[in-house]
């Protein structure tokens, strides 16, 4: 009855409207009983109970008034976007990330179980080709280590609370989550620098060409029984480079917005940055698992290139035949020590 009165009272002034603020506030807090996930739902409840749409719109649009408080955005009474952010973060980003990362892991387990490790198809010759110089390797591991630090700390910030306190107790959780925030917020900018250097340095290697198209058509060697041709980098590697570049820059950009709240970012800016950052970074983690898999247990001989800088001639021929043709003149004859290691059957090599 009351609601009708208000909605149909055309003479209701703005002032009359605002006198209901208290009720709106009360309404809002009561509206949070039960599982109110969407702001819309909350809005509906409040509208249904207290006032007309006009009134609600004016307060929830973030009507600002005068206040002596110096707190940021303290003139604004209600910020409904908070509820929207909570909904998106907790109901979409959080489970979405689990699905993406879990799905990626599951797929890789399946690949490993069906295909196993991709072995070298011929015995090693022991002759080594220089693939990555010291700078490239240092840069790669710099980016990789900072990336993993950010991934683990970020995942902890998002998911840790659901299980760590329960299994490891209060003290461990307290220190771990504080460490995670610290590492994440300080390593973030460090990673950003590494990523930019990497993008600039490897940009030139990564333009797609017809060879890569054929590489993709043959599924990187899964389709057909011949290993597809590839230059210095194959199609898959270039794909990972561009994924890292694009997703990585988005993650870095949104991360910097979150990390340096010094430029007058509003709560709403932070919410948006958080959703972009969370969503895209989780996707990036899911994709990165594929790269890590191929670089380690997925294919024999790949990791040693990034560890020592050199790859075996056999590996180069098998995986990057066109590149091998270019560099075969510069092949290093095995040094005595390395030769004996290779002769002993490659023990100790991944």
């Amino acid at each position, binding site marked *: *009855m*009351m609601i009708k009165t*208000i909605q149909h*009272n055309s003479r209701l*002034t703005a*002032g*009359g*409207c*605002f*006198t*209901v*603020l*208290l*009720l709106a*506030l*009360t*309404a*809002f*807090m*009561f509206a*949070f*009983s*039960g*599982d109110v996930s969407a702001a819309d739902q909350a809005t509906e409840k409040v509208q249904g*109970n207290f*006032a007309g749409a006009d009134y609600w719109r004016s307060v929830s649009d973030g009507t600002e*008034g*005068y*206040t*002596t*408080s*110096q*707190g940021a*955005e*303290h003139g*604004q*009474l*209600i*910020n409904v976007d*908070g509820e929207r*952010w*909570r909904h998106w*973060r907790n109901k979409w980003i959080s489970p979405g990330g689990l699905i993406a990362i879990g799905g990626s892991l599951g797929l890789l387990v399946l690949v490993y179980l069906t295909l196993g490790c991709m072995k070298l198809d011929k015995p090693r010759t022991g002759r080594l080709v220089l693939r990555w110089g010291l700078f490239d390797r240092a840069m790669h591991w710099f980016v990789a280590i900072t990336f993993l630090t950010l991934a683990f700390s970020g995942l902890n910030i*998002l998911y840790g*609370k659901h299980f760590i*306190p329960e299994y490891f107790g209060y003290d461990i*959780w*307290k220190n771990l*989550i*504080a460490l995670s*925030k610290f590492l994440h*917020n300080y390593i973030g*900018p460090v990673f950003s620098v590494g990523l930019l250097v990497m993008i600039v340095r490897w940009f030139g290697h990564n333009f797609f060409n017809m060879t890569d198209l054929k590489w993709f058509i043959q599924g990187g060697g899964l389709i057909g029984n011949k290993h597809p041709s590839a230059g210095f980098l194959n199609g898959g590697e270039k794909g990972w480079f561009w994924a890292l570049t694009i997703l990585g820059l988005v993650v870095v950009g949104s991360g910097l917005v*979150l*990390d*340096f709240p*010094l430029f007058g970012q509003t*709560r709403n800016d*932070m919410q948006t940055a*958080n959703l972009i950052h969370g969503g895209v970074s989780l996707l990036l983690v899911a994709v990165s698992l594929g790269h890590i898999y191929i670089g380690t247990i997925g294919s024999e001989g790949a990791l040693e290139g990034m560890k020592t800088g050199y790859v075996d001639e056999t590996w180069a021929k098998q995986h990057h035949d066109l590149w091998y043709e270019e560099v075969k003149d510069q092949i290093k004859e095995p040094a005595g020590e390395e030769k004996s290691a290779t002769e002993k059957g490659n023990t100790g090599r991944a």
Partner: protein
Amino acid sequence: MAKMKFLCDSERCIECNGCVTACKNANETEWGIQRRRVVTIDDGEPNETSISVACMHCTDAPCMAVCPTDCFYQTDDGIVLHDKDLCIGCGYCLFACPFGAPQFPKQGAFGERGKMDKCTFCAGGPEEDPAKQKAKYGANRIAEGKLPLCAEMCSTKALLAGDAQTVSDIFRERVVYRGHKDGAWSSLDSEKAVPGEMSQQQMAALADELAVDAGNIIAKA
């Protein structure tokens, strides 16, 4: 079980900021932190309206739902408190809160904010030692059987604090005595209802109507 809530009657609030001062005094909050504030809409215009806001101790609290450390908890009285030892100052609670209640001592590079601070309904926080508790979280008046100082000190009794049921009853009673058609929310534009000019029957009917409506408010609690 009591459910503690605040309610500010904007018909009475005169923007004296007494609640703000009382809070600051009771809790001795850090420099720059003001747990309660008064917001005046349409300041200086005929329909100027003020309202005092702080943490509303939401039933399904958004801050609690997003905190990465899970440092919030709700007391049996429905008061939302948090553990400053666990808080990492990420700001998420502030992003989620509809009322802008959580505050931070600083706002630095690398997301350095310090420990979050907000209204505790004068219920202190998770710290055994009373002196430490007072220093970290402010007063624990609830433990002494007292209500929040802001509401106790409110000169016009606009700001009410206490069990939701009781607070609503008081408010409903006021609405009835104000006696105009739009009840709580309009001193202007009402067609009838000059208090004292209503018949007993009209009063009774109005009271009934309003009671039903206010009932809707608390039914949600």
